[in-house]
């Protein structure tokens, strides 16, 4: 068994961002490791951490939880690409068979003013929560709901709303954007509700509050680079951004 597991081994050089704490000076540190093609990227980091501990060095801090691409915890920029080389794939779903023996891999956290680094590869994405708190919901108290079939929704709208609702809140869109804009993330939520009858009553208030909060949190502006869509592991489309822009214009007009 052990022998077979060794088949597919590869030697890699990793350059990993290490930073002791918020605001502390950080820098890349180089590590050599033997990985296996069947490992996931994060399992490779687990193995490295285990070796570090055995050598008496502090393990690398990185975030992860589900390891299935759905919780949005993992946030590594690999060789300059948020979530790494594979399209529509979170880091936790990336496997080492994407790499060859001898490769150099550079690993760093999301870089954005609104996501300050906490330690090593971990950053603070609390600003995303703030945007959602500003209006990412339908105000309905528990127990006050009518029968579910009282609210029919055309399938096309339901499907489009679902496409937008798939956002996992990872922040890759921000990390990929030259302006560190959170437009795609915000637009995904605004779109979900703009497409559904349940979202109608709070339509104007929601988009204004969420966009304003996005600005307050220090995210940059959107200048149509569309790097966000390319980096998004869930394939959230930039058409949501145009929808949000329309919603915003409509809401401000209506308010005046």
């Amino acid at each position, binding site marked *: 068994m052990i022998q*077979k*597991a060794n088949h597919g081994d590869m030697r890699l050089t990793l350059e990993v961002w290490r930073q002791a704490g918020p605001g502390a000076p950080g820098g890349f540190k180089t590590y050599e490791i033997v990985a296996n093609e069947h490992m996931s990227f994060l399992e490779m980091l687990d193995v490295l951490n285990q070796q570090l501990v055995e050598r008496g060095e502090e393990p690398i*801090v990185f975030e992860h939880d589900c*390891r299935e691409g759905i919780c949005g915890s993992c946030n590594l920029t690999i060789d300059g690409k948020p979530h790494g080389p594979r399209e529509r794939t979170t880091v936790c*779903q990336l*496997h080492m068979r994407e790499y060859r023996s001898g490769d150099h891999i550079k690993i760093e956290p999301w870089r954005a003013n609104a996501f300050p680094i906490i330690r090593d590869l*971990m950053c603070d994405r609390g600003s995303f929560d703030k945007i959602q708190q500003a209006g990412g919901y339908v105000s309905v108290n528990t*127990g006050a709901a009518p029968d579910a079939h009282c609210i029919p929704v055309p399938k096309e709208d*339901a499907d489009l709303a679902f496409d937008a*609702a798939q956002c996992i809140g990872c922040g890759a869109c921000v990390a990929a954007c030259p302006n560190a804009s959170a437009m795609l993330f915000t637009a995904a939520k605004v779109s979900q509700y703009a497409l559904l009858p349940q979202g109608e009553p709070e339509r104007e208030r929601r988009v204004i509050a969420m966009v304003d909060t996005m600005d307050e949190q220090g995210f940059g502006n959107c200048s149509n680079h569309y790097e966000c869509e390319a980096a998004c592991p869930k394939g959230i489309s930039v058409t949501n951004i145009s929808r949000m822009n329309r919603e915003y214009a409509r809401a401000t007009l209506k308010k005046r």
Partner: protein
Amino acid sequence: MTPADSPTASECLDSKVPSGPMSERWSRHKFDLKLVNPSNRRKFDVIVVGTGLAGGSAAATLAEMGYNVKAFCTHDSPRRAHSIAAQGGINAAKNYKGDGDSVHRLFYDTVKGGDYRSRESNVHRLAEVSVDIIDQCVAQGVPFAREYGGLLDNRSFGGAQVSRTFYARGQTGQQLLLGAYGAMNRMIQAGRIEMYNRREMVDLVVVDGVARGIITRNLITGEYERHTAHTVLLGSGGYGNAFFLSTNAKNSNVTAAWRAHKRGAFFANPCYTQIHPTCIPRSGDYQSKLTLMSESLRNDGRVWVPKTKGDSRAAVDIPENERDYYLESKYPSFGNLVPRDVASRNAKLVTDEGRGVGPTGEAVYLDFADAIKRDGRDTIAARYGNLFEMYERITGDNPYEVPMRIFPAVHYTMGGLWVDYNLESTVPGLFVLGEANFSDHGANRLGASALMQGLADGYFVIPATIASHLAGRQLQEVTTDHEAFKEAEASSRERMDKLMAIKGTRSVDALHRELGNVVWNHCGMERSAEGLNEGIKKVRDLRDQFWQDLRVLGDPQTVNQDLEKAGRLADFMEFAEVMMNDALVRDESCGGHFRAEHQSDEGEAKRDDENFSHTTAWEFSGEGQLPKEHREPLTFEEVKLTTRSYK
């Protein structure tokens, strides 16, 4: 005293189930419960630990009602709780398909599915409120799958004979959790919920016998914090990660529940764990978690292994007559569609015989070749395309060309803290919700029922039953200066210092992996008295090793993920022994608990209703002491006990 001869020493637990006809109990109970006057609610502080479906829905609803809510989670955002990963769907007795579903049928199926080891009245209530959950979620804008007419779509799930499962593609848990997260956000914005992210509850504070607060560790700064409240709600999830490898998220743990247990909350049925038959097998010693593949695959895939031991040929090179389609031959009428536990156990049997496949030998084939030949590649792609892609992403194999390799994995834990009908534990004022409690699934959970239970508990049950405590008891004001808070904080710090001071040689993960192996081998798919006794010894040895040889580096005053994991592993090390004791004492087979000694000639699980129609709840009785066993007898008024057969 060994646990095996302790049962006689038990006291009966009072479940506080209301009387009267089953279908009226919940309504009556709600009517009989005291109410907290809306203007008084803001005088009550409620702590909610966990923001998964159970905790998140409870926090939002209680805040809407006017209570002061403080919510806690270990994640950086409430949205990342493990509930996010649930795929398949959520059950509700809406009967939108008109196929004869009803509250009674859902109730009946759940009691039967739980192999008659759950509390009837709780299950009936669950079935009743299931319909309200869907209404609530739809009103929140949860994008469930819909038909062209604009109405909600349903499917049949996990062998149910009616279509009662609501779903949102393969991301039902995500969409439901984001709904609850939105509801929480609204209350956070309104100042009704104080949200504490990245905080780990490390102890429960009990004052004059009542749960009055918690101690948390700030996972960024390492600080210990004291929080008071009039009541504490735990929605901290299941304990599947005792096995190290499971389908649970990596940070799922038993700590909150275990800490509460050590402060007086009884732990019920810890041996009931659910093992899911269709997971992607482990590929090597570095494996960190297992991924679930939808069970629907068994509708078209054929399960087989080579007939001969150690056959290392590639699957395509093994001729038809040298393949053993063991489920089809053993269970001619159900074939590949036998229930989860039967499929899992048989996979273990053939791999134990040395007939497993793949690099580790711990896998069986799930072959789609015949289905592709019969229905065409396009049809199979339409049915399972996304699953095949996920499989390929992880394994690098293409299931259109070579059979999938699957193996069972730990998926859900039915046991949990014991609660009465009000969801109150044996510590007054401590309520437990969702997977963290033991309440509704008996010895086996049906597919799509965990999401239902978490949301039932949080949206509908707790908001009513919490009044039994808040309006029913005199609660003095307590402050964080109280002795009980001081003592709890001091003991938490001491534990942490102890972990940091070991300075041994072994990493947390290495020790956790080893514990996982022991639990899997001795208390996994098949248990026996001999194996369990041996397992208990191994767990004790390993626990000693842990306390002697653990190595946690770095500073406790900053982010220290190994220290977090070490604290959780310390609890799993203690918990695993209770789990095995429970499995030992339950000298019968039922649901997910299969005792090798209790099987029919055909290898089917044999229940012993005469002696084991009860819930076992363990009381902590001191470090290193065997816990004391208590029982809650189970009575069945509505559902007739029968034996399963899948021949």
